[in-house]
Structure formats: C-alpha cells, structure tokens
C-alpha cells in the first residue's frame, strides 16, 4: 500500500511537471502577450510585461468595432447550445438503434455516417438547399447545418458505447411494460451518460470553434460568430498582437468555463459508468 502511495505521488508529480511545460506554458504565453504593450507583444518573446496593461487591453478589445466580440460570443453560445442539444438527441437515438438491431435502414445510416466523416460539405449546393427552405443566413439554418455535420461523429460514439449497456436491462424494462421511448429515455440514455457528456464536450468545442461553415452559411455582421470575429480581428490587428492575443483569450474563456464546470460532470459521469458496469 505504501509503495502504491509513493507511486501515486511520483507519477503524479512527473505528470504535473510535464503538463505544465506542454500545456500551461502556451496558455501562460497567451495571457502574458495579452497583457503587453503593442511593441512588446510584437516580438513574441516569453517575458514578463514591462508594464502590466491587462485591464486596459481587455477594455480596448471588448470595445473594438462596437463590441463585436461580445455579440459574437452570444451568437456562438446560442448556436452551440442549440445544435449540440439537437445533435445529442438525434444521434443517441440513431446510434442506439444501430447498435441494438439489424434493420433495413441501418446500411443507409451507416453509409451516411461514414460518408459524413469523409466528404467535406459542398458549399454552393448547400446554400441552394438552404435558400429553397428559406433558411439561408438565419440562425435556425445554421443550427441545422452544424447538427447535420456533427451527427457522424456522435453516432459513431454512441454506436460504439451502447454495447456497454447490458441488453438484459432492456429486456427487464420491456417486461416491466416500458414502451420504446421510455426504455430509451429513462433506461438507456441515463446509462450512456459518459458518452453523452463526451459528445457534448467534443461537439460543443467543435461547433464553437468552427470557422468555415458560418463563414459561408451565416453571412452578415449581426450574426458574426466568435471565430469569424477573431479572424476579422486578426486581419485588423497585425500591428497589435497584444489585442489579438487578448481576443484569443476572451473567446477561449467561455469554453474554458464550460469545461471546468463540465469537468466534474465528465468525471462523475465516467465513474458512474464504472459503478454501473
């Protein structure tokens, strides 16, 4: 037991040191750059700012272009929450049935899943479809697009992990008189919590960080998303690397907060999976 404790310490300390070098130093670099003066920031050196002007840079960046970053963050959060919610529900349903039973439609879904991973979106024809549906350039249209392009990854994960839910549970629930919706929503889905959390985290990050799809499908400065705002900012602040890094910091913070919040969920979600096993 004692040796195990010591091992936990030694390995843990080494891992922490490595993680600091590999993951935290870059993050610290972003923070330091964001606190510098333009002249200092432009030479990229990893140094403490001569004069710490973090607050000043923060307010300048937030106020830039009528507060475009704040608007963009709100838009991105709306887009992310809506499309990930839709994605989780739809893909859990599909992945669950796909893993549980052989159906005539399964080959079609499987084909779409793989094709969806491999084939990049065809921009112009997709715009035509959106225009026919009167959804082009609207947030609902964008949500449907992000949902569709996130389905493949999510279904793949659900399909892979549904098998870890013992089939006997289904049978027991059915014997108890549960219908298919109750079986899915009240028995299976709660047991898939680790996967649900994984899908939420990964897809939220993906949608939030997506650049190409909103560029084409959600034009207009009112509906700008966080990444588009950052890109615009990149073009506009070639001489102001401090503000650019501040912008990176600002748009990384919502996912960071969400992740820190979800981190407990992930861990408890994952451990609940273990207990259930």
């Amino acid at each position, binding site marked *: 037991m004692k040796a195990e404790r010591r091992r936990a310490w030694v390995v843990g300390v080494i891992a922490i040191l490595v993680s600091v070098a590999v993951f935290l130093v870059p993050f610290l670099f972003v923070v330091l750059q964001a606190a510098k003066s333009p002249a200092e920031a432009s030479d990229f050196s990893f140094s403490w700012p001569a004069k710490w002007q973090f607050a000043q840079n923060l307010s300048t960046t937030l106020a830039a272009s009528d507060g475009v970053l704040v608007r963009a963050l709100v838009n991105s959060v709306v887009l992310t929450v809506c499309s990930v919610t839709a994605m989780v529900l739809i893909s859990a349903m599909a992945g669950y049935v796909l893993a549980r039973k052989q159906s005539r439609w399964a080959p079609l879904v499987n084909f779409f899943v793989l094709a969806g991973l491999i084939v990049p979106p065809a921009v*112009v024809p997709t715009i*035509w479809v959106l225009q026919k549906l009167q959804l082009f350039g609207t947030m609902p249209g964008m949500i449907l697009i992000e949902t569709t392009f996130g389905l493949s990854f999510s279904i793949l994960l659900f399909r892979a992990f549904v098998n870890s839910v013992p089939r006997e549970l289904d049978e027991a629930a059915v014997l108890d008189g549960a219908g298919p919706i109750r079986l899915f929503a009240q028995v299976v889905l709660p047991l898939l919590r680790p996967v649900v959390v994984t899908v939420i985290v990964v897809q939220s990050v993906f949608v939030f960080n997506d650049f190409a799809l909103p560029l084409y499908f959600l034009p207009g*400065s009112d509906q700008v998303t966080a990444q588009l705002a950052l890109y*615009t900012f990149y*073009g506009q602040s070639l001489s102001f690397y401090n503000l650019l890094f501040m912008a990176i910091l600002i748009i990384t913070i919502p996912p960071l907060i969400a992740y820190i919040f979800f981190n407990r969920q992930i861990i408890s979600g994952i451990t609940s999976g273990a207990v259930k096993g």
Partner: protein
Amino acid sequence: MFRSVASRRVSFAIRGIALMSLALTVNGGARSLAGVTANPVTISLLAGGNDPAALKFATDLAAAFTKANPEITVKVNTRPGGTDGDNLVKTRLATRTMDDVFFYNSGSLMQALNPDSQLVDLSGQPWAKLLTRDFKQAVSTSKGMYGAPSSSTFNGGIMYNKKVYAKLGLQVPTTWVQFISNSQKIKAAGIIPVLVSYGDTWTSQLFVLADFANVSRQVPNWSTMYTSNKAKYSNAPALAGFTHTAEVFNKQLMNKDYATLTFVNALKLLATGQAAQYPMITAIISNVVQANPAQVNDIGYFAMPTDSGTPRATVWAANGAYIPKSSTGDKLAAALKFVAFLNSPAGCGIQATSGTVAGPFAISTCKVPADAPALVADELKYQAAGQTGLALEFVSPIKGPNLEKILVQVGSGISTAQAGAALYDQDVTQQAQQLGLPGW
C-alpha cells in the same frame, strides 16, 4: 436566447412579406430610380477586406455618405482578403446574397465574376464618361461597364528609402546590374538591401508581376500570345522575373527572417531605414501612413530595373465599387447614389484622407492632393514620360493560382528559376483549361 431565435424567425416572415410586396410594386421601384426616395433605406456595403485600411475607408465613406443623405443608412460588412475573399465574393454573387455595394479588384478578378449576369450595368451613369480609358477597360465586357473606381491607381516596382540612398550616395538604378551593385553596397553598410516577406506569401510575386511593363515593352503583344498559349514564362523576356527572384536569394541580399517576416513589419523596417529596398505595390503605402506617419515621405519608388536599362513602371488599375443584380428597388437607387458619391468631391476627399492615394486617379473628378505620399510624385514622373504599362492581370484573364508558392520556392532556394518558371507554365495551363480558353 431562444427568444432571439424566435425573433429571427419572425423577422424572417416579415422579410418574406416585404419581398412579396416588393414584387407587386415593381413599377414603384423603377420610379424610385429617378432618385426621389424619402423613405429611410438601409443598404449594406462589403469592404474590400478586413485589414485596418479597408475597414476605415469603408466606415468613413459610409458615415460621410449618410451625413449627406440622412435617409440612407449604410451598414459596413467585412470579408477576408486574398483568395478566401475571392471565393466569398463569388459564392455570395452566385447565390444572390451579395451586399448592395461591394469593393473588389478590377481586371481579370472582376471578369471572373461573370459580370454580365451578376452585376448592374453602370455605363449610363452620369460619372461614367469621366473615367480613364484604362479603368473603363478594366471593368467592362463587350456588353457593359460595371464598376466605379474606389481607389487611385497604383504601381508595382521597388519602394526604397530615400534617406538610405542619400546617405550612401546611391543613384536610382535603371539596369538590373546597377540594382545588384547598389544592393551590395547597402549590405556592406549593414543595412538590409532587399526586403523579402514570405510571412505573407503573396508578396513573393513582385519581381515577376512588376516586371510586366518591361516584358510588354520588348514584346508588345506578349499578353495576347500568352492568352493563346504561344508565350511562356520559361523563355525570355518573361523569365527575367524568376531569375531576379532567385538572384536575390543566391547573393543573400535579403533579410535573415525572410521566411517569416510579414509585409506590415517589412514596411516598418523600410520606413525606419533599417532596410533600403522592397519590391512591392505602392498601394500598401497606406500602412506606412498609419504606422509610421513621420517617415512616409522618406519612401520613394522606382520601376523594376531591366537588363537593357530602360525600365517602365507597371501600373495596376484602380479597384472598383460594384452593385450586384440582387440589389433592387429602393436599395438599388440608394446603391447608385452611394457609388456616385464615391467619386464626388466629398467622396474624393474621403479617398484622399481615409483611403489610399498611391498614384493618379482613374476619374477626372478626383485629383491627387498636394500632401499625397512622396512616392506618388515618383510614379507621376513615369506617367509624364509615357513609360508605363498595365499589369498582366488587366490584359489577360490567365493567372495561375500557385505563382506565389512557386516564387517562394524560387526565392528560398528550394527550386531554381528555370524549374520554377516551368512549373508555373504548368500551373497556367491548368488555369487556362479551367477557364475553357481556346488553344489549350
């Protein structure tokens, strides 16, 4: 947040109704073309990029226009620059979702927008007859004239620091040999002789593109032969641009950080005299105006030196403002007003203060202001002497998309000038085939 989605839906429904009513009142829309609209209108304007200069120009212009026309509000949108921007413009046009007015290049890039089917013909506008012949040609097809100038013309060649030249007692070179010997003297003095900024890959092309007026001086119909698959970059005289690019690398006449330097930082080095010469287009002088205002007039311009010693300046036609066919009714009337304003005395004033004066204007209503950057005077000397020629992109539809990458290879010693030129000829073949040109 759900409310905002719902409200978008609602506003969408309203927009649908508005569209229907618009369809019912086509005549009303046509009447408003005469310019008697008192109803408030909002039009959108797509800036020519997302760099500070492009954005400032668009917003200042929009503000001045609304001040003169309080019933019209102009909303400014931005887009990526470079090829990302080209794509976005094409996608928006093809899907009929373009802003009511947009700024874009003239010449071959504009021709690739299929102007006859996508853009509003402006040849009947009152200002159209005041345009220069070069500009008219750069925004016209056989069926119509589609653009108004939104900037001055500008040149390509060498931007140089006059103070460094004076300090070292150098003369403006006319032959390539003089250019190299000047550069070697500059290097000996501990100053960067030639700025190379592959951190922005497009800047690699200038030795080739800005040499074109020299090519067309030697072979006047080179562009026609090029378009019909008879002239190649692998052969003289066009090969010179490639060999010059390679020579600067082989003689190590460029800055050490050539692979990562960005053009914004390169301009700072040039303005402050840490570097002496920069092969560039003069349009980017606006960045110096913003970043190093005190040094703007230290920067001069000379045309790309040649082997024969009789260089001509390569001229780029002005960029244009265009109106898409998707802009109709009151919005079209407002857009036309806006485009006219662009070249009114007030608009010229905005072009001079917020835009770029990097050469003569393309319309007689706008005059080069007395306080224009010093290098404009250098450009006008070539103009006065008749020693200019249009850049290739205004006289041929072909430009291979990989020129900048190929020249980075040539200018970094990854491939030779000859191999680079041959590769570019292949690239050009691909472009010509994609355009469906005869003879390829």
